[in-house]
C-alpha cells in the first residue's frame, strides 16, 4: 500500500527555556488516515499540534505540509496552507461574542465570491454535520454545554472543507454516549470527505474506534507508530502499561463486544 504523505516532520526540537519537550522528532501523516497521537501528560502532544498548525515554530527541524516547506515560506504561502487545515481546540476556542453560526462563517469570509446567503446555508450545513441541532446556530458559545462547544468548534474547523483537521482531545469531558457519537462523527467525516485527521487524545475508546494508526510520544520523540494491534505487542514499559492497563482492557472488551 503506497502512502501519500501530507505532513512530514523531521528532526523537530521544541523547548521552553531549558526544558526540552521534543528532540529529533520525526513523524509522517498520510493522506486520508486518522492518526491518533498519545503520550503521557507533559510529553508535548498539544505542543506538537500547535507546532504543525503554525502557532509555535519549533527551535529546530523541518515541517513539510502538502509538500511545501511550512517553516521557510512567505506569509501568503503559509495562509494558503492554513486554509487547507482546520484546528479544533480543546474547549472549542469559539469567539465568545459571535453566535455559533457566525463562528462557523468566520473562515468563510476569507473566500471570495461567497454571498451572505451561501455562507449562512453552508454554516447551517456544517453545524448539522457536526451533530448540532439547527437552533444551536443562533446561540452564543456561553449558552452551550461543553460537548456542544466541542461540536461547534469542529463545525468551524470544517467550515472550508479542509484536507487535514487537528483535533485536540475531542472526547475529553464528554459523556460516554456523546464521546462515541463523536467517534462515529470523526469516522463518518473522514470516510465521506476524505479527511486526514490528526487526533490528540487520551481516550482509549476513541483510539480503538477511530484511529487507523497510532503514534506514541515518549522520551521526547515519536517512539512507535503502528496500528492498535502493533501497539499491543510493544515491549516498552510505558506503552505496555498504556495499552494493557485496566482501562485499556475495558476499552478492548467493549470493542470486541460491539464487533
Amino acid at each position, binding site marked *: 500500500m503506497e502512502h501519500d504523505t501530507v505532513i512530514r516532520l523531521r528532526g523537530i526540537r521544541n523547548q521552553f527555556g531549558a526544558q526540552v519537550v521534543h528532540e529529533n522528532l520525526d513523524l509522517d501523516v498520510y493522506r486520508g488516515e486518522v492518526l491518533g497521537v498519545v503520550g503521557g501528560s507533559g510529553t508535548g502532544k498539544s505542543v506538537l499540534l500547535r507546532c504543525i498548525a503554525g502557532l509555535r515554530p519549533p527551535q529546530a527541524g523541518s515541517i513539510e505540509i502538502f509538500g511545501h516547506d511550512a517553516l521557510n515560506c512567505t506569509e501568503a504561502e503559509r495562509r494558503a496552507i492554513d486554509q487547507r487545515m482546520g484546528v479544533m481546540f480543546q474547549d472549542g476556542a469559539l469567539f465568545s461574542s459571535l453566535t455559533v453560526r457566525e463562528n462557523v462563517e468566520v473562515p468563510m469570509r476569507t*473566500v471570495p465570491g461567497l454571498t451572505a446567503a451561501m455562507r449562512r*446555508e453552508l454554516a*447551517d450545513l456544517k453545524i448539522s*454535520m457536526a451533530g448540532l441541532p439547527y437552533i444551536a446556530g443562533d446561540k452564543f458559545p456561553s449558552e452551550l454545554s461543553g460537548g456542544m462547544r466541542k461540536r461547534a468548534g469542529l463545525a468551524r474547523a470544517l467550515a472550508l472543507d479542509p484536507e487535514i483537521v487537528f483535533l485536540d482531545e475531542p472526547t475529553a469531558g464528554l459523556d460516554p454516549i456523546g464521546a462515541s457519537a463523536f467517534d462515529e462523527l470523526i469516522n463518518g467525516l473522514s*470516510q465521506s470527505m*476524505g479527511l486526514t485527521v490528526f487526533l490528540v487524545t487520551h481516550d482509549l475508546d476513541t483510539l480503538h474506534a477511530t484511529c487507523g494508526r497510532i503514534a506514541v510520544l515518549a522520551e521526547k520523540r515519536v517512539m512507535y507508530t503502528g496500528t492498535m494491534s502493533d501497539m499491543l505487542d510493544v515491549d516498552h514499559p510505558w506503552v505496555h502499561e498504556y495499552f494493557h492497563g485496566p482501562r485499556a482492557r475495558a476499552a478492548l472488551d467493549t470493542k470486541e463486544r460491539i464487533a
Partner: protein
Amino acid sequence: MTEVQPIGDKAQIDSADPDFGLEQHGDTWVLSGELTVRSLGAALPRLMALDGTTLALDLRGLTRFDTAGAWALLHLRDQRQSAGYDVTVHAQTADQKALIARVEQAIPDAPETRTERRSINDVLAAIGQGVVGVGRFLAEILAMLGVFLARLAYLARNPSQFRLTALIYHADQVGWRAVPIVSLMAFLIGVVLAFQGAVQLRQFGAEIFVVDLIAISILRELGILLTAIIVAGRTASSFTAAIGSMKMREEIDAMNTLAIDPATVLFVPRILALLITLPILGMVANVMGLFGGALMSWIELGISPAMFLTRLIEDTSLNHVIVGFVKAPVFAIIIGVVGCHAGMQVGGNAESLGQQTSSAVVRAIFAVILADALFSVFFAMMGI
C-alpha cells in the same frame, strides 16, 4: 411550500471561475474542474441559471468536490423539485455518492423565520422594561451595599478572617498609585482657577479675593469631586474587570463551593481600601490645588506665598474643609459598590466584560456627580 429564495448575485454569472466548467452533452450537463467552497461563489449562479424542466448533471469531470459542492447540487435539486421540475445527479465515484448522501442527510430543515414588525406595544414594553431595569439596578446596588456592610460588621467581630494583605495590596493599587495623576490634576486646576480668577477680580481691584475663590472652590468642591471622578475612572473599571474575569472563568463559583465568601474576599478589601484611600487622595488634591493656586497668584497677581497663607488661614472657614471631607467616604462607597456590582454582572463572554467595565465607569461618575449635587443642596439648606 417554502418560497424559493435566490442565492447568489446575477452579476457573478458572467465572471465564471476558470476552475469550474459546465458543458452540455446531449441531455446531460457535464461538470468539470473544481466544485468546492472556493469556486462556489461562481459555480452556484451558473448552476442555478440552467434551463430545462428536466436536468441531468454528470459529475465525471470533477477533479475536486467537497461538502459545499454537494450542497450546491442538492440545493439546485430541491429548488427545482419544489417548482415541479426534475433534476438527477449522476455521481461517478463512490466517494462522490457517499459525500452527497452524507450532506443530504445533514441538511437541516430550517424553520421558517418570521420577521416581526415593531408595534407601539413593543416600544412601550421596552420603555417599561427600562424603568423596571433601573429600579432593579438600584435595588441590586443597595443589596451590594448591604452585603458589604454586613460582611464588614462580621469581620469586625471576627478579625482573624480579615485579609489584611489584600487590603494593603488594593490600597496600594487604588490609592498610592493614583497619587501622581491626582496631584497633577489638582495642581493644574489650582493654576487655572487662579489665572481665571485673577482676570475677573482685577477689574474690581479685588485681587486678594482670589485666595478665597481658590480655597473655597478647591476645598469644598473641586478637590474631592475631581479626585473621585479620576478614581471612578481608574478604579471602578479595574474592580469590574478583575471581578468580571473571575466570574467569567467560574472562579467565583469555585469560591462558593469551597465555602469562601466572595463578598468577604473580594468586595470588602476593595471597597475598604477605597474608603481609606479616597479621603487621603482628596487631601493630596487639596494641598496640590492650593499650591498651584498660590503659585499662580504669586506670578500673576504678586500675592506672596506668605500673604496667601495668612489670608487662607484667616478667612477660610474650617467648614469648607469639613464639607469636602464628609463627601469622600460616600464617593468611595459609591465607586466601590458600583464597580463590584458591575463585575458580578459579567456573563460568559468577553464582550459583556467590556460592556460592564465601561458602564461601571459611566455609572460611577454619574452617581458621584449626582451625590455631590445632593450634598450641595443639603449643605445649602443647613446653611453650612
